[in-house]
């Protein structure tokens, strides 16, 4: 092969790499994700300080304390939100912390939350949590801004619109400040309303999708958020912390489920992100080599 032919073949290779048919990328992505969903790799975790802050706060609450959980996720962000929500529910039930579920982002959200809660309530360690006794579903409120404002002003009056103000869960709750935390599990900008309207009545914890993390980190840094759980990694963090507090090596907790969606979705996500990094690097290397080849010729 002559030098000219070698250069031509080389540049053809880089040209192909630079303008790879996207269907190849799609195929690789499908194969990686499918394989790892079926055969997850148990990667070690380094828990984020933001996730740990929320876990430690909730874990330190007393039995019988009440928190408000605003569940604003649906299956469109199941990969990230479901793991977070499951781990949160496990922690609350194991610690016997009562909770009220509301939703402002999507009318589908309460049903999805209920399905997760009911399945976790049957697990060992969940203290046989009962609806209307240990937790209560307030349901969907269509106008988020007004709902939050009313909750801050008069929580009993606002929840009376759903007829749950006399539920045993609401015992001793006369003001929002009687609730120990407001946890927003969300895939949309619902948390902004709480920042604006909360008036320091209760600590806020946020469990959001990864794409929302950058805009919410300033609130964690400023101390407005008690803790911040980000994306699938945040769900995995919460599960890791659950496993540290309730290790299956301890016979008392041997039947507990600590890991579920958080860890299961982590390895496909990690490898999909690695594919993304590799494809960006490959595209840039190809562009650089082609430029260099052009300069040489």
């Amino acid at each position: 092969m002559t030098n000219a032919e070698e250069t031509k073949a080389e540049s053809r290779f880089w040209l192909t790499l630079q303008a790879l048919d996207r269907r190849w990328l799609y195929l690789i992505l499908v194969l990686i994700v499918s394989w790892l969903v079926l055969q997850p790799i148990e990667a070690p975790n380094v828990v984020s300080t933001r996730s740990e802050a929320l876990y430690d706060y909730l874990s330190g609450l007393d039995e019988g304390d009440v928190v408000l959980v605003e569940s604003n996720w649906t299956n469109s962000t199941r990969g990230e939100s479901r793991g977070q929500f499951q781990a949160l529910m496990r922690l609350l039930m194991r610690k016997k912390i009562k909770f009220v579920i509301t939703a402002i982002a999507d009318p589908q959200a309460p049903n999805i939350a209920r399905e997760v809660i009911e399945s976790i309530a049957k697990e060992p360690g969940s203290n046989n949590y009962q609806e209307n006794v240990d937790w209560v579903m307030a349901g969907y409120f269509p106008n988020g801004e007004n709902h939050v404002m009313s909750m801050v002003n008069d929580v009993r009056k606002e929840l009376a619109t759903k007829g749950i103000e006399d539920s045993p869960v609401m015992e001793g709750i006369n003001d929002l400040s009687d609730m120990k935390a407001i946890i927003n599990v969300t895939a949309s900008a619902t948390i902004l309303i709480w920042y604006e309207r909360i008036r320091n009545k209760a600590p806020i914890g946020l469990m959001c999708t990864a794409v929302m993390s950058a805009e919410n980190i300033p609130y964690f840094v400023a101390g407005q958020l008690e803790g911040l759980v980000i994306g699938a990694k945040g769900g995995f963090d919460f599960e890791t912390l659950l496993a540290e507090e309730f290790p299956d090596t301890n016979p008392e907790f041997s039947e507990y489920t600590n890991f579920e969606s958080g860890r299961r979705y982590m390895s496909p996500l990690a490898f999909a992100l690695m594919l993304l990094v590799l494809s960006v690097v490959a595209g840039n290397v190809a562009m650089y080599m082609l430029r260099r080849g052009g300069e040489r010729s």
Partner: protein
Amino acid sequence: MNWLIAQVESPEPGFWGLPHTDAPLLTQGFFWAIVGSLVGMVVVIFFLARVPSNFRRPIAVAFVFLAGMFYVLEWVLPRGKDMSGETVIPFLFGSNYEDAVPVVANLSQIIFGLLLALGILSIFRVHFGRLFRLEKDWFFSFVLLGSMAVMIVFGLMNWSLDQAVAREAITSEQASRTIAAQGFQFVFFDMLQNLDAAMFSLIAFFILSAAYRAFRIKSIEATIMMATALVVLMSFIPIFLAITNWLPADQFVGNFRVDTIGDWILDTINAPALRAIDLGLGLGILAMAIRIMLGLERGVSVD
């Protein structure tokens, strides 16, 4: 200034509402209040429909202004203490602003409910029209209306089952074996939710394709941005974190851990930049809100 001792008497039950009671609603005059409100609404709409068009805009703007001002007042009205030491915000006719909030909130929820009805009416108008005239893509209209009807029917049936379980008329075990519960399970959880997840998962393909094609280093700025993005991305992947996890976090070398670098970028570079953006955005929203409330923004209110 906001914490002046206003010595406002907290009204019981107050201008904004009746006390909460378990007594039947009819005895409280609620029935006539609802009938009166409906009649009043019809009368108002009747007169509004006859208002000359050049007067409609000022009326709409006045409503927008008053509605907007209600939320502004929360931040500007002075706060005081009543005789029992409770914080109150003096409002109309000696009432407490905070008592007005649930009333306005409920009003707003009702308006939102009416908007939903308006949306459904609009869907019916467009798609029934297309279906009856057998216009192009009529089949999609048929599927849309059919799916909507099925979801509404099973949704309502499932809701009534939930009510029956709450009244302890049937057990949840019995409820779960009914056609209504199984139908709802099928259309809502097995179909809609999985379709929802499938639609959203397509984004992964677009992101991968877009990152591969568009993320090219053509300048210093692009290089910095890509390096930063890659480090932050790596800080969310446990496998990358494990590479530097052995470095002790409390020593100098701990600064070179992937998670430390990622956190530093997010907390020290990203946070101030976002605060600046948020401040600009907030000022923009404020200006826009003032323009809308004063009726200066065309295309928003009645034009």
